[in-house]
């Protein structure tokens, strides 16, 4: 079974399975199905020995988890997802930027959870290139959120150079 996500600014079919064990389940006892699975960070850590044998594996981070200790193994993951438990929880933005900018993660970076159209522009700026919008909303509508603005003042992951270094800013004719 596939679902739709937004990836590289287009709606595409997605065949990754996002594994969200019930809370309270011990990470070492979570059964990880075969195939393309995105597992919680804790499950990865608890079952690393077997999971690292797989050719394809993804992980997801909760908004209060830290990516720094993954630094040496980031290239193993085809997908890293960052969970937004509520859209107003903004930790995921800094997590994404840190993964990209400080830790050099170059694979797919996917926003999951309470992912809505009106936050997509900012998410794309900090380094997300894939989005799983909340399933009760139109994904076509969400896609529009990626093009809300054409001007960006400050640098982030998508635009490495701030406006003042990119352009020769002159005053608009009065």
């Amino acid at each position, binding site marked *: 079974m596939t679902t739709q996500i937004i990836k590289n600014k287009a709606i595409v079919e997605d065949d990754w399975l996002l594994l969200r064990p019930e809370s309270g389940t011990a990470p070492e006892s979570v059964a990880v199905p075969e195939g393309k699975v995105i597992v919680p960070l804790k499950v990865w850590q608890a079952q690393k020995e077997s999971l690292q044998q797989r050719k394809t594996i993804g992980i997801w981070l909760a908004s209060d988890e830290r990516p720094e200790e993954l630094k040496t193994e980031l290239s193993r993951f085809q997908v890293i997802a960052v969970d937004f438990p509520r*859209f*107003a*929880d*903004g*930790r995921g*933005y*800094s*997590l994404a*930027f*840190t993964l990209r*900018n*400080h830790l050099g993660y170059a694979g797919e970076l996917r926003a999951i959870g309470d992912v*809505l159209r*009106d*936050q997509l*522009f*900012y*998410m794309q*700026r*900090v380094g997300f290139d894939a989005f799983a919008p909340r399933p009760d909303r139109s994904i076509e*509508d969400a896609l529009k959120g990626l093009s*809300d*603005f*054409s*001007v*960006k*003042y*400050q*640098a*982030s992951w998508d635009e*490495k*150079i*701030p*406006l*003042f*270094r990119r*352009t020769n*800013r*002159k*005053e*608009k004719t*009065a």
Partner: protein
Amino acid sequence: MYRYDQYDQTIVDERIAQFRDQVRRRLDGDLTEEEFRPLRVQNGLYLQLHAYMLRVAIPYGLLDSAKLRKLAHIARTYDRGYGHFSTRQNIQFNWVKLDDAPDMLDELAAVGLHSIQSAGNCIRNITSDQYAGVAADEVIDPRPYAEILRQWSTFHPEFAYLPRKFKIAINGAVDDRAVTAVHDIGLTVVHNEAGDIGFRVMVGGGLGRTPIIGSVIRDFLPWPHVMTYIEAILRVYNQYGRRDNIYRARIKILVRSLGSDVFAQKVEEEWAHLKDGPGTLTKEELLRVSGYFTAPAYETLPAVDAEVENHRQTNKAFANWLKRNVKPHRVPGYNVVVLSLKKPGVPPGDASADQMDAVAGMADRFSFGEVRVTHEQNLVLTDVRNQDLYDVWQEARANGLATPNIGLLTDIICCPGGDYCALANAKSIPIAQAVTERFDNLDYLHDIGEIDLNMSGCINACGHHHVGNIGILGVDKEGSEWYQVSLGGSQGNETAIGKVIGPSFAADQMPDVIERLIEVYLRERNDDERFIDTVRRLGIEPFRDHVYGIPA
């Protein structure tokens, strides 16, 4: 004054288009109120007791006559003919309809105004010295830096959903008129020993439920690093600030729980990734932005104007006004004129559309078209020649803007309180009015001298009550409105948090309470000692005893 180029204009226009669509989706039911709320507040739109309130950002308190006329027009067209200037140098319109808001923003954008990030858990309007550029005690003009940071913080993608709101203030003068010590970040422009320009960086100050004076985490940050260093502070806060409890979510709580040394260390570690990177401010950009803040074409004037001196000698009302409402200017023959929005009978900080138009007219004729908003909720004409002072006074007086009470007891800082605000525990405007009526004798008022009376209708402290020499806080006791009084707070270079004197009072007791505090001061003061100095010398006890009727 800064003027938008095509980039600034485009970004504001695109924001309005985005918001217009969000309003449409909300009205169509495609967005829930919970989803819509953060979007509308980051466009300055609050849902208050009676209607929506639109808070328009006035970046670092700077207006010109065209902007002010537009605000007057907005007040007439979309509100009930007035606006409220706030302690963060912004203006609030209290009677807004949701579906009018995008049109209001379109009108504002035409003159270079917006409401972006004037509310919500994001980086708010950056505030500064209301006398920037003209103050006699200015070291470095903070306005170019304030504008550079305004642009940097506008739609910063990472910092739109912070744990809580985030306020930055910049001061560039000897006297701190920007209340930097009680901001999330307080920047002071300074020189180091080599004469280079930089910033002293304070973090973690704040008022609200837990008032804290900020901690200095860097004595000297060279100016090119201002954006990258602040980015590092914000990234640490965004990741580690508490999100489980709204009352523990400000950066001050994080700084206090980590300790400012540990916090500073975390910032340094984060900054190491950014330092000297593309976010580093360039000399070219600083010069470009500074080019918008050049001095107007000042004339060479004598320091003293004989006619004004003559009026001063013969006209006591004019002399009072000169004494209280006219401040020194760095250029001889010019003056900074404060137009009081604290007239008896009018809510502090409120201005009618007609008053705004009148101020715009005065600015054009007497002050190079510029107007400032102060965090004490008054308006300022920055560049008035000596020879124009008498005309300005008469015109200000005709428009109810010449109450000679700047810095005095009736120059009350006051939030909108329970008359408008959905958060308030108690009304604040009627208390301010009752106190103003009690102290309506100008001679008495001038004799009392400098004193800050600050009042907030709830613990969120929009009226900065903690840093008032006398602070009044509205509290709710079993559904009725009471007022807690504190003493000894102060802003400026010796910022201090006031101490509560005891149990709270009913509304009708408040004028008597203030009167009794003043009685103690008048009895105990030495020579020219200000109220705050008497409180510092004696402590709060004699004041408390007199107010509560405890025999000495």
